[in-house]
């Protein structure tokens, strides 16, 4: 296969009736998909819908239980990883699988060299090959810099170049934009256009609706291991994609409780500044209020929350809790001031996975559960744990079960319980429903409303517009480290949030 067929005559690769079971769970049930050269095909679906499994089957990592894979008219009942690579299927995973200690040029060429069974490494032969690819794509990549030093976006471009050196005709990208800033996404998209012109068939795996529509020609939406719908991108809009993904009408109904207009602010942040992260950030949160903070990745939204929580303290500015200034130089300072934080990376920052639910719930409030001899008060600890275990309806056989056995939604409830056990005045939550299934999502938002109604001030950092619409009294929009907009009342809608975020 030398000539690449740029006319959309036949698909480069197609899969038919792929079925895959893990134990008793059916991950894929008769999935079919066609990839054409020069097209971006978006594979969308919620977490756990089976899209990752499908990619693994196409790239030969997993073998299907039934169905066939057709590459260049040849039918295979399964792929193996080497065959997939030699026939031109390349997957770019989120971690890019690069060697951080090697140069860009070496990373680009090395796998092809190894696959070509070159026994000796020839430094001189490598550079021109890498150079050719980089120039062809019109990239501004320093071939000699170490990959470990590159930005996420440049690592990704390195991975794309590596795929092309291997004569990729199908490039599958797993969540390619999650870690990129707005301008980096734009740059990626121009590269994608060039790849299309080369006749490469691209698959974008994503659950971000805007991207899906912006870049792809064809969209396939999966839910619970099945293809729900597939068609031209022009036939879909944001709402219809979301509807297919969740299987439910997008719920953007606002449920917010009225606030006491005279109440003194629980949390006041004024002129908070951290060079390189955010600048002159000021806002207040009233008792019972849920404040949304949104912005693109890299806008500074996470840094603001982490500064208030003391994880990366602000360089200047004031933080007041209940009108009293508090000095927050470390996390214990923030906890002492009554500030809690549900971090964005639940698995590594929020939870002790091997420990029990009970140990996790009590982890943040050990010092609050001491008896008069400074030992732990076992009775009170048990009652706190069983109270939160029940009131947050954590689904597990009992509180001694390890957190590792829980689903995303239940694990997030455990993190929430850990902070509710500290009885905080201010609770910051970063991406509280990321990786949580739809049902759990609305329950978690309901838990937040309940916590707020007890007088807590809640700050939700999220890029999930419907979620912000659903529970927030006000929404701050952050861009390039500054608060650029505040949406209130009826001005809060998914459309307005998206508009301001991208502006």
């Amino acid at each position, binding site marked *: 296969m030398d000539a690449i067929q740029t006319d959309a005559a036949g698909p480069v690769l197609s899969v038919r009736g792929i079925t895959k079971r893990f*134990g008793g769970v059916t991950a894929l049930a008769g999935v079919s998909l066609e990839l054409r050269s020069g097209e971006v095909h978006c594979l969308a679906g919620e977490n756990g819908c089976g899209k990752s499994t499908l990619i693994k089957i196409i790239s030969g990592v997993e073998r299907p239980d039934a169905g066939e894979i057709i590459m260049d008219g040849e039918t295979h009942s399964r792929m193996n990883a080497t065959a997939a690579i030699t026939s031109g299927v390349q997957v770019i995973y989120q971690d890019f699988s690069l060697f951080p200690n090697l140069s860009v040029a070496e990373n680009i060429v090395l796998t092809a060299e190894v696959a070509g069974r070159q026994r000796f490494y020839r430094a001189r032969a490598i550079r021109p090959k890498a150079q050719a690819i980089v120039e062809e794509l019109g990239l501004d990549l320093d071939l000699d810099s170490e990959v470990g030093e590159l930005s996420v976006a440049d690592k990704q471009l390195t991975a794309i170049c590596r795929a092309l050196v291997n004569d990729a005709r199908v490039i599958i990208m797993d969540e390619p934009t999650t870690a990129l800033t707005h301008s980096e996404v734009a740059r990626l998209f121009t590269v994608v256009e060039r790849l299309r012109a080369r006749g490469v068939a691209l698959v974008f795996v994503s659950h971000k609706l805007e991207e899906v529509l912006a870049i792809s020609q064809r969209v396939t939406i999966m839910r619970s291991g099945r293809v729900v719908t597939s068609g031209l991108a022009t036939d879909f809009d944001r709402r219809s994609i979301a509807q297919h993904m969740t299987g439910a009408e997008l719920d953007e109904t606002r449920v917010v409780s009225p606030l006491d207009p005279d109440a003194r602010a629980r949390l006041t942040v004024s002129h908070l500044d951290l060079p390189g992260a955010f600048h002159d950030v000021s806002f207040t949160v009233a008792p019972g209020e849920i404040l949304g903070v949104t912005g693109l990745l890299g806008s500074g939204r996470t840094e603001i929350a982490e500064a208030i929580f003391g994880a990366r303290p602000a360089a200047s500015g004031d933080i007041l809790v209940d009108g009293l200034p508090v000095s927050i130089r470390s996390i*214990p300072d923030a906890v002492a001031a009554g500030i809690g934080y549900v971090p964005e990376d639940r*698995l590594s920052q929020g939870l002790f996975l091997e420990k029990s639910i009970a140990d996790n719930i009590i982890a943040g409030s050990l*010092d609050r559960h001491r008896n008069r001899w400074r030992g732990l008060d076992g009775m009170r600890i048990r009652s706190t744990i069983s109270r939160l275990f029940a009131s947050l309806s954590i689904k597990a056989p009992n509180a001694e079960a390890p957190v590792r*056995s829980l689903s995303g939604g239940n694990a997030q409830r455990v993190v929430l319980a850990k902070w509710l056990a500290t009885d905080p005045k201010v609770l910051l939550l970063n991406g509280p429903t990321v990786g949580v299934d739809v049902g759990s999502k609305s329950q978690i938002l309901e838990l937040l409303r309940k916590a707020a109604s007890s007088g807590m001030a809640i700050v939700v950092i999220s890029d999930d517009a419907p979620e912000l619409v659903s529970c927030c009294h006000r929404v701050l929009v952050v861009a390039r480290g500054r608060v650029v907009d505040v949406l209130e009342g009826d001005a809060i809608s998914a459309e307005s949030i998206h508009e301001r975020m991208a502006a």
Partner: protein
Amino acid sequence: MSANESPPGAPAPGDGARFNDRVGTVTRDIIGRASANRKTGRMVVALLLAFSIFAIANPRVFLSPLNLQNIGVTAPEIGIIAIAMMLAMLTGGIDLSLVAIANLSAITVVALYSGIAANDPALAESLTLPIIVAGVLVGIGCGMLNGFLVSVVGITPILATLGTMQILNGIAIVTTGGSTLYGAPEGLTAFGRTALGPVPILFVLFIAIAVLMALFLSTTSLGRKIQLEGANPVAARYSGISSRSVLMSTYTLGGALAGIAGVLFLARNPTASADYGASYVLLVIVIAVLGGTNPNGGFASVAGVVLATLTLQIVSSGFTALRLSSYEYAIAQGVILIAVMVLDYVAANRRQRRPAIEAPPDARAASPEPTPATAQRDTEHS
């Protein structure tokens, strides 16, 4: 269990129900502990096995009161250092300097005592307790140095304590000139010879310290924080736990225990030297791991460590009873360690192959996408 399963807002349970809850909680606690202490149970079996093998092989020597008492007298010093090692490993670290600390504390006590006794034996006698306290304080000081290097400077524990081990060993050799010091406090050696009925007082002391440490880990805030710090340092930080103070306290406590072990060296044998117990460094690591300590941190059991100490001491004295050499004992140590690790591995595999029994109804435990999006998602701050 019923308490946890009652939905929120269910009618308040009556007294009877509350009693049932209490009983339920207690039962669950016991079951939970039993399964958590599977490794401890394993050590009980190993202990009984070792004991019966040697009791049958050479009952005349092995079961003699002298031999049994000898086990009771030698186990405490090793056991206490092993508990200190367990503490360091519980935070995900290690403390190679413990034996060196113990020696330095023993040398301090002997040097102080014999120095004073040379001029005024009566004064030295009356100062026995302060001198012992000084020895333990030396241990605490060394532990604080370790804690400082690990928590404030941020040196990897294995390197920091390797450094202090060399420094402390060096100091010990330089101050003693490499020779053995004689002249432990009379009172201390006399204490070391006493017994509570058939049980040597040193063994009683060991058990008391072990019980205190077990209580410390389970019923104090610091003890729980030590375990959490080891289980996931990042989550500990994000839970408001100051790793600096936790590590500082852990290594200081380890130093204190090593100091006490140094005093016990003297209670058993009234001489101190820089190279005493050189083989203990690796032995206590073996004991700690055998006792169920997870070298990655977060999980350990004092009871397990006590049982592992006794098992290895029984094997050691059993080998002596069978007239086997210390080299063969070293082989046995290695074989026991690897055998137990293999058993663990087999057991863990078998447990994994069993379907997840605790999967909650909505858990997507067997989901084809094992990593929730949170794991890879926002790498925003990198």
